[in-house]
């Protein structure tokens, strides 16, 4: 063991002039790589998550009529990646049923343009009531004044399941509106959806380390001697004397 360690040290000492610059270059590559390939992370902005006993639910069925729930808001100065809302399954398994959600962005002329259409598998929800993350497929376009609509798509042929519902509380957030639409009739809700906005930003996990290590190893590299070892019986320099040593 000691012998192996000594051999390793000898190898290290003999090849330091190569090893240290190589480590420096590796750190430099890591530094550049960390800058070029950042790691995207999601930020949860808890817009309205305060629960209370006065909270209520808007069901996706009113009698036999399907209900569409709409939520209007203004994003931060960056695209909205998705939202997290509280879904209650009313005790049903909802296997094969989906929550369809669309995102519309308000245009200059006041009209809304569809930018994202997605479905969430309600059968995959573990708990009867759960806050679920609903990501947007074309999230880069979801910026500015947006309207998100939710509607329920039951499993084909299943008539026994109860319709799910979204949880709402009495909080009225600025620049937001919660509505439900039955038979094309819009009704504004006196309150708001319990909702979190999901944004994203880039992080650079190894940038700090690599940029410091690059210069630490560069400094260490500068302490090595790069002189060629003197040899016996050779001309030391052009036009010089023959070295007898």
């Amino acid at each position, binding site marked *: 063991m000691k012998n192996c360690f000594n051999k390793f040290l000898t190898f290290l000492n003999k090849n*330091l002039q190569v090893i*240290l610059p190589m480590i420096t270059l590796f750190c430099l590559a890591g530094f550049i790589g960390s800058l070029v390939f950042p*790691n995207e*992370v999601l*930020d*949860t*902005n*808890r817009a309205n998550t305060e629960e209370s006993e006065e909270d209520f639910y808007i069901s996706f069925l009113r009698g036999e009529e399907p209900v569409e729930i709409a939520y209007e808001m203004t994003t*931060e100065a960056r695209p909205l990646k998705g939202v997290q809302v509280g879904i209650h399954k009313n005790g049903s398994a909802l296997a094969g049923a989906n929550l369809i959600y669309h995102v519309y962005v308000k245009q200059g002329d006041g009209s809304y343009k569809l930018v994202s259409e997605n479905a969430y598998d309600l059968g995959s929800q573990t708990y009867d009531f759960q806050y679920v993350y609903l990501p947007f497929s074309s999230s880069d376009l979801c910026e500015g004044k947006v309207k998100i609509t939710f509607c329920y798509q039951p499993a084909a042929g299943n008539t026994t399941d109860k319709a799910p519902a979204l949880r709402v509380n009495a909080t009225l957030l*600025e620049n937001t509106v919660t509505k439900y639409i039955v038979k094309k009739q819009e009704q504004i809700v006196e309150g708001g959806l319990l909702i979190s906005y999901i944004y994203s*930003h*880039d*992080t*650079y*996990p190894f*940038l*700090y*380390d690599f*940029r*410091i290590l690059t*210069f*630490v*190893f*560069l*400094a*260490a*590299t*500068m*302490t*090595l*001697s*790069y*002189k060629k070892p003197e040899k016996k019986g050779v001309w030391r320099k052009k036009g010089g004397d023959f070295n007898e040593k």
Partner: protein
Amino acid sequence: MKSKGTVGFAILFIITIAVVLECVGFQFHAVTNKEKPLVIKPGADKQVEVVVQDGLAKLTEDEVKAIEVERENRKLLAEYNNEEYVEEVDESLVEKDGTLYRKIKQTTITTKLPAVYYAHEFKVECALLEKGGYSVTTYLQDKSVNKSVYCSINPKIGAGVALLNSSFDSFSVVLTTEKEIDTDSITISLSNDFSLNWLRIAIIACVMGAIALLIFSKKFVKDKPEWVFAIFAFAIGSLLIWGIGTNQVSFDEYVHAKKAYDFSFGTTIETTESAMQMKGNLLPFFYNRAERKLVEAYEQENHDYSWADITYQSRFRRSEDRVYYPNSAGFFIGRKLGADFATSVALAKYGNLLMYIVVVFFAVKLANKFNMLVALIGLLPNNLFIASAISYDGVVTAFLLLATVLITNELLEPEKKITWQSTLGILFAYVIGSLTKPVYIVMALMLVFLGKKKFENRFQEVVFKLSVCVVAGLMLYAIFKPLPAAGGDYQLVGNASFLGDKRNVGTSFSGQISYILANPLTYTKVLLGSMFGMLWDYLFGGDSFIGYAYLGFKSWIWTWVCVVVAFFTALFSEKNEKRKSIGLKYILLNLLMIFGTSAIVLTSMYVSYTPVGAETISGVQGRYFIPLFLPFFSCLFQDKCKISFSKLWVNRIGFFVMTGLNLYMVTDLVLVAMNL
């Protein structure tokens, strides 16, 4: 010590003597007074008189400050959320003549005992929802035995134990609570049990062991100070860890505990109720061994992972958080071993202590001619305490000490070429030591002033020095432009208008910088006034330096004792020893670096912790200057002051003073304050 057998026998002998001393000297009350435990239920016993009255209790300064800070932070949060700030009114508070009082209920319980009773412990149990307390006065033949003793009751453990150690035949208890309590829930117990105090036994054993080591191990003390340091640091650190238990008494320990605990998990954090309370600085506090048992039982009952809170974190953490590795390793091992809560906390502290001992061990070993000075700094009570707590400051102190030793070695050998090992050692130690407090990286700039003889050629010298400057620059740059990390506070952290320490009212990062730029002369006066004012206070009794954080500080005389020992060790050497000076150039540069680093430390506190435009700098503590001690004392190295006695005696005096001081502080602040 001659052989392992002798060492083993000596240890056994010391422990036996310590146990005998404990039995004879400190358990005397239980041997001579053999009363059985007595339980009184005021609600059920008609002999006991109970009277309930209304009252007012003045709020302490800390309570008033906490209310102000809470109010200020709510205002900021409302501003950040674009909401209107509405002040919440606390119904339990009353303001009279500008002073805040809390409405309270006082329940007075008076009873006569069947016979004279000698009580060691006096325990009051009752069901409370808020914090409460009681004061007990004892009487013998209707004469007061001693002044009333106050004891707090934490609702989490539902009891408070006072140590009376007196004989009496009646007593009166005044229970102070926020709301009226059900007298049926009150139980008063008196006891006088024989119970060995193992912490006291350990302290007695450590005192005797330290004396034996310094007297009998001459060669060891003289030639291996790094090993003596390691033994003493481990012993004192263990006494601190064991004695303090889960009481959170280090600087902002709950903040560090949160990060270290979370860091011990991967991406999914399981926070038990006890861990949650540790993170929020809400764990019940104990003041004696009886309360400690109740607290640890409560913590263990709530340390159940089956109903732990589940949260998530990014797999990539901030680089700065890596300083929590030693603490986190302890939490991780504790969890894997299935250890109870108190043991897990102790293991987390041991992680820090062992890291500290290993790094300072090498610092002492590498400091050839000034190793005793380094050992003394390593044994400074402030350093040992912080190394035995959940904190990153142990990493900061240990690595900066190692870096300073390596750089001092280079300054002492101006002709010798700097090696790659030394360069990596210095820079790594400075970088690790400055990860969380980047201002200290300024100390590494001493490398820029190394002479040209230390390098192979001019080009290598220039690139080396530029690299050092870039390393320092990048670390300082990260203060003003931190790299974004994962988490929901991204927008808040990135917004300079909300930067500033939220523990103090009126702070603003950008506001304070604007103030300094607008009033440079005024700020220079504030800075120099604070700098020299602090120095004056620490040296001439205005403030105490030597201390164990929130446990308390010792008289400024002890500061002088440490200063004198350090001066003596730095200045004098034995006749046969040849010492080198770092030279006038490096003395001046060292002093300049010390002044510059101090100014930056003070300025950072002015910007982040002090209200905008204040005329003094808040939050600066003496321990922030500990990394500058070695550079300062290295200016005294020379070969002219010689002493006639040997290095053995220099080391003996140094170790005796520092170990004695630590053991005295452990006894006074840990044993007497919370483990009797």
